[in-house]
């Protein structure tokens, strides 16, 4: 398969060059997936899919056009090259358009290529059985488990050739509590892994999430409007940190919609925030060996103790901004854990919330945000008091990130992220 893909991408690059395209990049891939679906507490569907793709990207006289197909038929590809050449003629020059210089030929492989379908089913049924036995009031809305494989090749007209094959298992579950006529908010978790050696529920704090749902009946409104502290669970913390990092990336600099112009070496948050980009981290099941613009990915330290080390800048953004390209565009993020456990952070809250999920509007350049605290609990004097409902939290992203009180030592491991709990101060709850 890999040799076929390699031949396909190199020959298509050559065909584009022959057609007069000045600079070209071609990515081709082939993927397969096995997926078990459970709904209404029982198995419903076994789905197997296969797909293929070829993506063509061309630049001539700084003009860019691209197209993608899911067929490798020569006639279709030839037509696509012709169409792309024609589209380039009508495009507009942009001095940001370029391709990566030649990189060393590289091959990457990780994860299981062949699925163990029986064990995958058994691991999925195990989740359902455990949930029904130990959490009978938890209603599983959707439980999905997968094995996915992908073979890929990338070539460009500067002579770069990358190939890869990868595989991974995954599981996700969406659920809510149901007791008579009382329903709790839905919650969810997911797992990405390279083997099926341990139960899906033993990853991260998945069982704890089921416990939180059981604690979510009899939800009450908070006793009064107040300004206090939040302990954000990892999913919520990652979302807010991600929002902050969007403002120190190439897109925000090009649009001008950021308060952090010329901030390299300067503070953008509390010293409790350190963010590392580690595309090859051994614990990640989804690794980013190469960048979308054709470079080998390298790690970098994005934010160190609140100070911005560099902007995350792609090749296009580096040309537009006349700034140095970052070692990767800001993927595979590790938010450095702190010294206290999440339980210790909760114990240190005088009055505030433990927030599982923030359901809010998108955060604009002003940084102002407001939204509902979902899967969340009221904390008073260090103790979780009760589940909450209809509670809005509001504040300013940039102010909040300067008011981080700490990160937890325990963290959530995602397919390409590590995120701890995050405690912040000065948030209005109403």
């Amino acid at each position, binding site marked *: 398969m890999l040799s076929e893909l390699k031949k396909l991408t190199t020959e298509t690059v050559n065909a584009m060059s022959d057609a007069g395209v000045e600079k070209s990049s071609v990515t081709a891939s082939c993927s397969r997936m096995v997926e078990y679906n459970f709904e209404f507490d029982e198995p419903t*569907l076994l*789905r197997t899919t296969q797909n293929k793709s070829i993506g063509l990207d061309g630049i001539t006289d700084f003009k860019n056009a691209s197209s993608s197909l899911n067929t490798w038929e020569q006639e279709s590809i030839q037509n696509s090259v012709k169409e792309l050449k024609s589209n380039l003629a009508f495009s507009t020059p942009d001095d940001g358009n370029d391709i990566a210089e030649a990189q060393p030929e590289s091959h990457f492989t990780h994860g299981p290529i062949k699925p163990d379908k029986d064990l995958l089913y058994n691991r999925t049924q195990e989740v359902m059985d455990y949930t029904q036995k130990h959490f009978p009031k938890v209603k599983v809305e959707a439980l999905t488990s997968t094995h996915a494989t992908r073979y890929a090749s990338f070539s460009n007209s500067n002579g770069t050739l990358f190939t890869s094959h990868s595989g991974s298992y995954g599981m996700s579950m969406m659920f809510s509590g149901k007791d008579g006529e009382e329903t709790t908010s839905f919650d969810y978790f997911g797992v990405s892994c390279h083997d099926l050696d341990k139960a899906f529920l033993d990853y991260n704090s998945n069982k704890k999430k089921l416990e939180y749902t059981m604690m979510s009946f009899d939800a009450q409104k908070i006793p009064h409007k107040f300004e206090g502290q939040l302990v954000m669970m990892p999913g919520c913390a990652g979302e807010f940190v991600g929002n902050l990092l969007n403002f120190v990336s190439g897109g925000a600099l090009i649009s001008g919609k950021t308060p952090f112009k010329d901030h390299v070496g300067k503070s953008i948050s509390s010293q409790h925030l350190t963010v590392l980009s580690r595309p090859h981290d051994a614990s990640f099941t989804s690794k980013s060996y190469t960048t979308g613009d054709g470079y080998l990915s390298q790690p970098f330290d994005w934010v160190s103790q609140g100070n911005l080390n560099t902007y995350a800048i792609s090749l296009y953004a580096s040309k537009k901004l006349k700034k140095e390209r970052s070692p990767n565009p800001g993927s595979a993020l590790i938010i450095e854990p702190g010294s206290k456990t999440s339980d210790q952070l909760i114990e240190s809250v005088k009055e505030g919330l433990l927030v599982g999920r923030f359901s809010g*509007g998108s955060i604009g*350049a002003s940084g102002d945000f407001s*939204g*509902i605290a*979902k899967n969340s609990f009221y904390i008073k004097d260090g103790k979780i008091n009760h589940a909450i*409902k*209809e509670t809005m939290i509001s504040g300013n992203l940039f102010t909040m990130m300067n008011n981080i009180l700490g990160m937890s030592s325990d963290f959530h491991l995602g397919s390409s992220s590590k995120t701890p709990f995050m405690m912040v101060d000065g948030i209005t709850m109403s």
Partner: protein
Amino acid sequence: MKIINQLESIASQLPDYTEFRVQHNFSQSITYRKGDLIGNQSSSQKGMSSRSFDAGYWGFASAPEANASVGLDLIKESQDNAHVLAKYAHKKDLSIQSKVVTKTFDFASTKSSYAQSEKIDFVKSIDAFIEKNFKDLINYATSLRLLNMEKQLYTSFGSSFYSFIPRSLLYVSMSVEKDNEVTDLYMPFAQRGEMQDVFGSPDTLFPKISELYENLKKKQEGVFASAGEKDVVLGSELAGILAHEAIGHTTEADLVLGGSVAGQNLNKEIASPMVNMVDFAHTAFGETLPVPVYVDDEGTESKDAVLIQDGILKTFMNNKETAAHLDHELTGNARAFGFYDEPLVRMRNTAILPGKDKLDDMISSIDDGYYLVNSSNGQADTTSEFMFGVPLGFEIKNGKIGKAIRDTTISGVAFDMLKTISMISDEMTWDCAGMCGKKQNIPVGMGGPAIKCKINIGGR
């Protein structure tokens, strides 16, 4: 009948029970940002799928081909998948309904397609108009997004359909900055139809784009909303997304079976008696709707699902499996986005029906509240608790529109909030700019009149 003529032979070879679908999605996007063409892409996804039902279980298989030989292999694979699941688990006593229907609904344009150069020039003209006329913008972007979905379905029970449904969307966004603070606003223009049927000369859009700029300037000078429960008028665009997110999702039968609060409220009063809400299949008020579905992807003839009638929750939206579990009638709500996707319970054109009030009277009836024009994003819950971002709104003071407000959020519990509705306008708007995300993203239509209600608003 472009994609599948050579596959008609498969229709007579389908074993019981099997659905066989051939599909081609073609999308194109062209984006200008501040004079730069930053996006000029097209994508084609073509393939086949087979879904089989046996012993209470579903099997599905798909491949990126469109030929009879691979099609027969897929049919075998989907049957095997259903058997495998039946082998793992116990046999389910689940019987699904099927009624034969055969239809074609083709919304392809009868006009010549725009050439690529014309499409690029169209977007470029709008970009140039913005640059020429609105000098103080720090950022602006115009994006044209076209999607054609073409499907052919055959079923073992005799139903079949062909459909071609195009959607054209133009998205314009603008930003201004003052005292180091950035204010954004955007506007989508979307309709069913190919570009040549939806967009004529770019000049026709200039008045709307100028209005967008004027609202952006008002918002830049806007005030923060005062937090708390307020009397508001929700504009028709916002009412549409309210219908979809906060009420529609809770009444999808798969979510009902998953524990949604709507389950125990069937035939109960959940809204003011003036509220009526329908998930329309394809036609309403004599017009073909933005996302017309005449036959769904399970081969069921689609019909309107009357969700709320005079304030009473009347039914849910079903596919074959949920209808079997609930012993309900089929509504034809099973839809799949790509050839590789299985049909799920999805909304089609969900709307709160218009009332008898005039928008001006609704605004003048409020002493201290807000007129909230549209929504940036929204989320809802199994409890019917919802949240929407509001990028454009205005104060109402003593019955008159006042200052614009800054970005805010509204929230509530739909089944409570619906009971506070006291006025509904006599006009409604339809929109199909959004993609609904529920395992698969898929285009949906939503509509509504303006409604007056009480709602929680975020602010300072």
